[in-house]
């Protein structure tokens, strides 16, 4: 499977899983889909038949709310059945909204932000002490970088020269209530450079750029590497892109679901079969009133007032 094919399938599963479950965070699942697609085809070493294989690269999705993306990547790689993805959020399921390690292929449970980088650093340090050659990967959200513990870990990793540690920031520029820069303004690149990491900035939807950045992260000064992947929240579905509403809203049955699926079908990679709607969905047009409720201005007027007034 190519990274483009996997990324497409992650998006398609993400739409289905959130639509079925009424689950949140489709915007974040779509923004991270290309990063996950590249990691789980061309970068991470793993063995689906032996998920605990000691030589595997370690991976933590620290922004645990995009759990659907890692579940989809693992199912498509054969860790468990694709069919099981439909149980996301359901009673008795193994697939909690935030990532759970009670699944083959998941090393670490997350959900509370700001935990993953420390644990990944601990694993990287242990690998150094034990002379093991795996790399320790962690995907962070940009909003997550509000958490002070991220920066405790950043200091630590640099001090201990953990050049086997690779962080990827899914920098979709939005967090829970608003744009990052309206929340706690930050220059992501400058901040990581300030912590003296090996900083690489890429377009987080450009697979070749991601591959190039992630394939070999060794560097002469033995610094830990952070790949700041500039992404678009809701990437791939036009009415979800850059709209904070879709941090929490799920695609409802009707035009939201149909338009989302059909839009993905416009860019389906060769060789991929949509497991849910192979021929796409019946054409629907966004309802005028319906579209209105999907824009941020009407969703949360109190915090958005400032932005509107400034325009």
């Amino acid at each position, binding site marked *: 499977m190519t990274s483009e094919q996997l990324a497409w399938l992650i998006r398609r599963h993400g739409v289905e899983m959130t639509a079925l479950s009424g689950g949140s965070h489709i915007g974040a699942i779509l923004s991270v889909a290309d990063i996950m697609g590249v990691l789980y085809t061309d970068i991470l070493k793993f063995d689906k038949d032996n998920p605990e294989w000691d030589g595997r690269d370690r991976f933590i999705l620290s922004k645990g709310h995009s759990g659907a993306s890692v579940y989809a990547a693992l199912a498509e790689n054969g860790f468990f059945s694709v069919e099981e993805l439909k149980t996301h959020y359901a009673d008795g399921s193994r697939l909690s909204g935030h990532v759970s390690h009670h699944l083959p292929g998941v090393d670490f449970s997350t959900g509370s932000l700001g935990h993953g980088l420390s644990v*990944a*650093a601990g694993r990287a340090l*242990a690998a150094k002490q034990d002379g093991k050659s795996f790399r320790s990967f962690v995907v962070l959200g940009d909003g997550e970088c509000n958490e002070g513990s991220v920066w405790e870990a950043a200091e630590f990793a640099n001090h201990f020269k953990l050049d086997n540690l690779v962080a990827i920031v899914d920098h979709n520029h939005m967090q829970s209530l608003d744009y990052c820069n309206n929340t706690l303004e930050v220059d992501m690149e400058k901040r990581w450079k300030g912590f003296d990491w090996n900083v690489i900035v890429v377009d987080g939807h450009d697979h070749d750029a991601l591959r190039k950045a992630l394939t070999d992260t060794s560097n002469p000064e033995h610094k830990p590497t952070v790949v700041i992947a500039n992404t678009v929240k809701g990437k791939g579905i036009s009415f979800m892109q850059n709209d904070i509403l879709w941090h929490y809203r799920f695609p409802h049955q009707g035009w939201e679901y149909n338009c989302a699926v059909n839009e993905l079908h416009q860019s389906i990679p060769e060789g991929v079969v949509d497991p849910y709607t192979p021929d796409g969905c019946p054409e629907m047009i966004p309802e005028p009133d319906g579209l209105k409720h999907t824009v941020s201005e009407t969703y949360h007027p109190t915090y958005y007032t400032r932005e509107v007034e400034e325009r």
Partner: protein
Amino acid sequence: MRDSVIRTLIELGQQDKSLKLVTGDLGFGVLKPFWEALPNQFVNAGIAEQNMTGVAAGMALEGNKVFTYSIGNFPTLRCLEQIRNDCAYHNANVNVICVGGGYVYGSLGMSHHATEDIAVLRALPNVAVICPGDPTEAELAVKKIAHTQGTCYLRLGRGGEKRVNHVIEEFEIGKAYKLRDAGDKPLKVAVFSTGAILEETAIACDSLEEQGIGVEQYSFPTVKPIDKEVIKDCAERFDHIFTVEEHNIVGGFGSAVAEVLCEYGTGTKLHRIGINDFYCIEVGSQKYLRKQVGINAEGIINKVKDIISE
């Protein structure tokens, strides 16, 4: 107590290089012997307890036996969620060492009084809560938890506690140890304590015995899992059980004993001796503050005598 723990850790670490000690930049003069003897098994994570605990979880998940070390509330409350999510939920082999349980750092002020930690840590599934009463219990506890998979909280006192005179043939997590029998005196009580307040409790029990009161005394180095058998046995034989802890009476050792007693359902009355749910604003040494809040030997004696003379 802390020095004997570090000595024990050095012995264990020399035999097992997967034993790692991670400190949050504390332990001046205490950790130096470990650092010198086993530099490759020692990590100073800086003043950053959340990261220290997350790192420890990551190291433990790679097969290490990790001890984190700090004082007061820093290795526990400051990074509670890392203990809960990263260590306990993953059943990671992380042993959290706190030096300064209770009023050890009394003069430093309220920030340094570790007086709710037992209650908080006891509420976490998968976490054993161990509060040794003297250096003997502390050494045995460290040896035991180093070889036990899972997350553990080890609450120590300071340096220089006396060894109480008791022989423990085999230390088990979850077991209480008897220090004296009540004999066949007509007036008798059971006294349980956890942690370093054992020294005051032992003095109090000596005095009560001299005054003709039969005392069956137990030290509970483990608060969780609690020794239900000893509690039930005492409930059958005593009208009054006293618990002593250098900790808030809410949620701590006395509460753990109460949970067992109430469900067991004899008519035995429980009397919790501890800090009566307030922050201590007074300044003073551990000895002074114990006296002020009524948990020193004199306070324990008075409480017992008041109750049984009612």
